[in-house]
């Protein structure tokens, strides 16, 4: 008897009480968190920074959840609402995934090739620059010590 009830309930479900398709918002949310957490948290760990071992799987998981949303909205539209929302959220997830992947694999490689100047340096050029406390620092003061000189992009 209960089975019959269920069956008839499915076939006549009015739009207003069809089930909410939670994967519609869960998918893009997971993709978003997966991408953003790389920059604000996981990038501080060298292994996870060099390759996003955690963030890539999370982003892909989000896309998979989003695919479920699509499947439900279009395949079982008798049960679930929101075809348009499912399509929009899928588009968002794909776009963000593509952006994240291109940052990791392409955008961050957009550096000029090492110049001949850099390649040819055998002795460090002399310089005097101001440090973070306004003190002048002269490279020649470090003669007799080993030294790491590193250049970074700044604007952190």
């Amino acid at each position, binding site marked *: 008897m209960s089975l019959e009830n269920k069956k008839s309930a499915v076939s006549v479900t009015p739009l207003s009480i069809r089930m909410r398709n939670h994967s519609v918002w869960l998918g893009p949310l997971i993709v978003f968190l997966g991408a953003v957490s790389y920059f604000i948290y996981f990038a501080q760990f060298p292994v996870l920074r060099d390759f996003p071992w955690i963030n890539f799987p999370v982003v892909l998981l989000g896309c998979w959840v989003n695919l479920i949303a699509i499947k439900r909205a279009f395949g079982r539209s008798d049960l679930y609402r929101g075809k348009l929302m499912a399509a929009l959220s899928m588009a968002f997830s794909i776009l963000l995934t593509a952006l994240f992947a291109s940052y990791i694999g392409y955008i961050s490689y957009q550096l000029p090739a090492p*110049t001949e100047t850099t390649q040819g340096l055998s002795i*460090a050029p002399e310089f005097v620059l101001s*440090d*973070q406390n306004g003190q002048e620092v002269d490279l020649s003061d*470090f003669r007799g*010590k080993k030294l*790491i000189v*590193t250049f*970074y992009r*700044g604007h952190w």
Partner: protein
Amino acid sequence: MDEIRALDSEVLAISVDSPEQSRKLAAKKRLSFSLLSDPEAQVIELFGLRHPGANPMGEADIARPATFILDREGHIVWKIIPDNWRIRIRPQTLIDQLGLIE
């Protein structure tokens, strides 16, 4: 950083940031080494590390990332010029290299 100093070595980090910006960065990250300010990118130019057009704030071009190890006479004995600004050199790599120098 203590490990590096134990090898009779020091660190100088250079960028186009102002001393004021560097002071904030050093305080935030608790950095104990010198952050040198090269706002006109003159030293960056000397090392051939200018990255043209990469500075969203205008002014001078910023540096492409690169790291050099100098021996006690100022000779460059080791350098790395990465092709990606995301992947950074590991401190241990530098410590190992410093250990190789007299």
